[in-house]
């Protein structure tokens, strides 16, 4: 049983408030990712869970018991650091074995010279070596056990760091941006490995990253953080499909979500570029809102496909990016006071658009997200009760 429960964790460094009362309950065996821009407090939070920092207020409980007074190693957690933090003067074997040496040998058995007196030590060391070998086998490190970290590649070091974490069979794994020092290809590979490792070990994983792709691909749940608080907590698909705020919408998804400025017209109807849409929001007339449209929700309109429930606007193609299987099309909004938009398109569709050509883009109104001036999500009313939308709409009361 290793649930992790955080209750109103607050932390300041000097006068800078890094965490402003974070509550978070993590289930046993869950893979939870803390994601957010740098400086959002996610690393501080994981370090507080590990016991490397002390929170100013609030409490941490692991497996239901408070651990605030415990030192890091007493908390039954393991941590993988961004820099791996391997002991440079020790072999891979000694690195992985260190946590075991510390817990299974008494202090005097670890001291230089004195330890030679211990007969039991040799026996314990044999057990430790066996455990290390088992972990090394799982991580394909067998042939590297006698090397020192400096003689390893980035990916190998990463594995050693994982091995050192795994060897104690901890109930909670904490990972602080463990993949950010790897090259792009290895990162993709390690994502899969970590996800499989999680499944195999069944332990609780708490994973910190600034890379939303890592968050989306590996996690059971994602906590998106900004400025010291959790903006949204939910399954990856939830964050993508129902972002609770403009910040979440902007952070999650690649290419980034398209933002279109709109206003609230009479009787709450939302107007895009002066044209009323079939959406209305419970907001005062004249208020500015932002429409968020995922780039796969955009499509090219040819006269006939415009219809009820579809918004449209004209744009001019600036650039095509060929990704092989698909294209990313970048459009300027001709003469509008707005950034351009990007759109995902199949090669066939992309072939039909020429650079600098003016086209009409449209999107399913039900598939767009509405955010008020403060960036909070607003559930729009769709008078027609649109169906088939990506967003499961809740009827506005």
């Amino acid at each position, binding site marked *: 049983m290793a649930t992790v429960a955080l209750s109103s964790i607050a932390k300041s460094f000097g006068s800078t408030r890094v965490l402003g009362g974070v509550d978070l309950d993590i289930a046993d065996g869950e893979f939870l990712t803390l994601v957010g821009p740098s400086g959002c407090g996610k690393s501080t939070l994981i370090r507080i869970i*590990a016991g490397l920092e002390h929170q100013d207020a609030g409490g941490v409980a692991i497996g239901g018991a408070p651990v605030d007074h415990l030192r890091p*190693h007493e908390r039954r957690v393991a941590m993988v*650091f961004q820099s791996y933090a391997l002991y440079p003067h020790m072999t891979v074997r000694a690195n992985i074995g260190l946590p075991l040496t510390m817990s299974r040998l008494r202090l005097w058995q670890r001291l230089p010279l004195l330890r030679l007196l211990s007969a039991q030590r040799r026996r314990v060391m044999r057990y430790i070596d066996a455990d290390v070998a088992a972990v090394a086998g799982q991580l394909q490190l067998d042939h590297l056990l006698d090397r020192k970290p400096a003689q390893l590649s980035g990916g190998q070091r990463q594995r050693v760091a994982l091995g050192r974490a795994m060897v104690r069979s901890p109930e909670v794994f904490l990972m602080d941006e463990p993949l950010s020092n790897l090259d792009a290809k290895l990162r993709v590979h390690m994502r899969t490995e970590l996800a499989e490792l999680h499944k195999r070990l069944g332990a609780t994983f708490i994973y910190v990253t600034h890379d939303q792709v890592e968050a989306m691909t590996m996690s059971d749940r994602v906590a998106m953080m900004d400025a010291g608080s959790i903006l949204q907590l939910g399954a990856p698909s939830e964050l993508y499909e129902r972002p609770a705020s403009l910040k979440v919408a902007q952070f999650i998804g690649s290419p980034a979500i398209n933002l279109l400025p709109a206003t609230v017209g009479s009787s709450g109807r939302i107007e895009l570029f002066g044209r009323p849409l079939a959406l209305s929001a419970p907001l005062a007339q004249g208020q500015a809102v932002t429409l968020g449209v995922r780039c796969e929700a955009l499509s090219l309109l040819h006269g006939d496909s415009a219809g009820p429930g579809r918004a449209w606007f004209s744009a001019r193609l600036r650039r095509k990016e060929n990704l092989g299987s698909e294209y990313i099309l970048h459009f300027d909004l001709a003469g509008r006071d707005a950034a351009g938009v990007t759109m995902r398109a199949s090669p066939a569709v992309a072939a039909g658009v020429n650079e600098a050509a003016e086209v009409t883009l449209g999107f399913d109104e039900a598939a767009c997200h509405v955010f008020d001036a403060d960036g909070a999500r607003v559930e729009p009313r769709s008078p027609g009760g649109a169906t088939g939308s990506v967003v499961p709409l809740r009827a506005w009361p």
Partner: protein
Amino acid sequence: MSLAASSSIASAAAAPPSIGRRLLLERLTGLGFAMPAFVLLMLTILLPLAVLLVLSLSNYEFGGVDMDWVGLANYQKALADPVIRRSLWNTLLYVAIVVPGGVLGALLIAVLVHRRSRTRSLYEVAYFLPVTSTLIAMATVWQFLLHPTLGPVNGVLKWLGVGSIAFLSEPSTALATLAVIGVWQLLGFNMILFLAGLTAIPRDLYEAADIDGCSGGLDRFLTITWPLLGPTTMFVLVTTMITAFKVFDTVAVMTRGGPVGSTEVLLYNVYLEGFQYFHTGYAAALTFIFLAFILVFSAVQTFALDKKVHY
């Protein structure tokens, strides 16, 4: 061009005939820039060294008129001279006290100071103050501190019921007392070097160790600090050895080699022979013996630092 004349010197250094004007100019500039330093290097180090070598093979006495070659007699005399033997022994004894005290003490203080946050700079100042102070002036103060009847140190000892100790006039304690003052002067310097070494150890490692159960002070020290501080320790060790071997000031001011030669050290004898008795040839030989020790210490350092990548 007036440069043309002098340029032949530079191009004489086997430059290909097609050498560009640019390269030629660079060589000339380089030579010009290095010249003052080179001349001074000759005048203040190399030439004196050569002269010293010649002197050490002669019986020259400063101010005297005649001078004869005596070969290695000066060296033989020095090695057989009980005064020199004693002073060499004293010097090594002094080194043997100052090095462990100055290195291990500084290491202990540095490790303890390193983890302080608010009080760190306070301790840094306190320990570093003796390094910047004028040792000769402070030696006078030490003399008074250790005065058999007036000094507060003996006052405290009396109060503790130990009885007074004539630290500097007792042959058995004088050298050790000077060594303690040597440690006092050196500790802050070494502490700062160790602190620099400690700062270079990534914090991550200590945090990883914390999580791995390596959280006791002794464990952290043995597992991380000590091994990773290896190169720094080596460096501090050697500089301390060299500094201690050069001990002179405190001897010259506080004991003048006494009582009964118990604090005569090598450099003090070099000074006496060379500049008080003007046995120039003999002093030159002593200087080379002194230099030999310094070079051995430096060689140890070079050798050890070459191997410093121990991981």
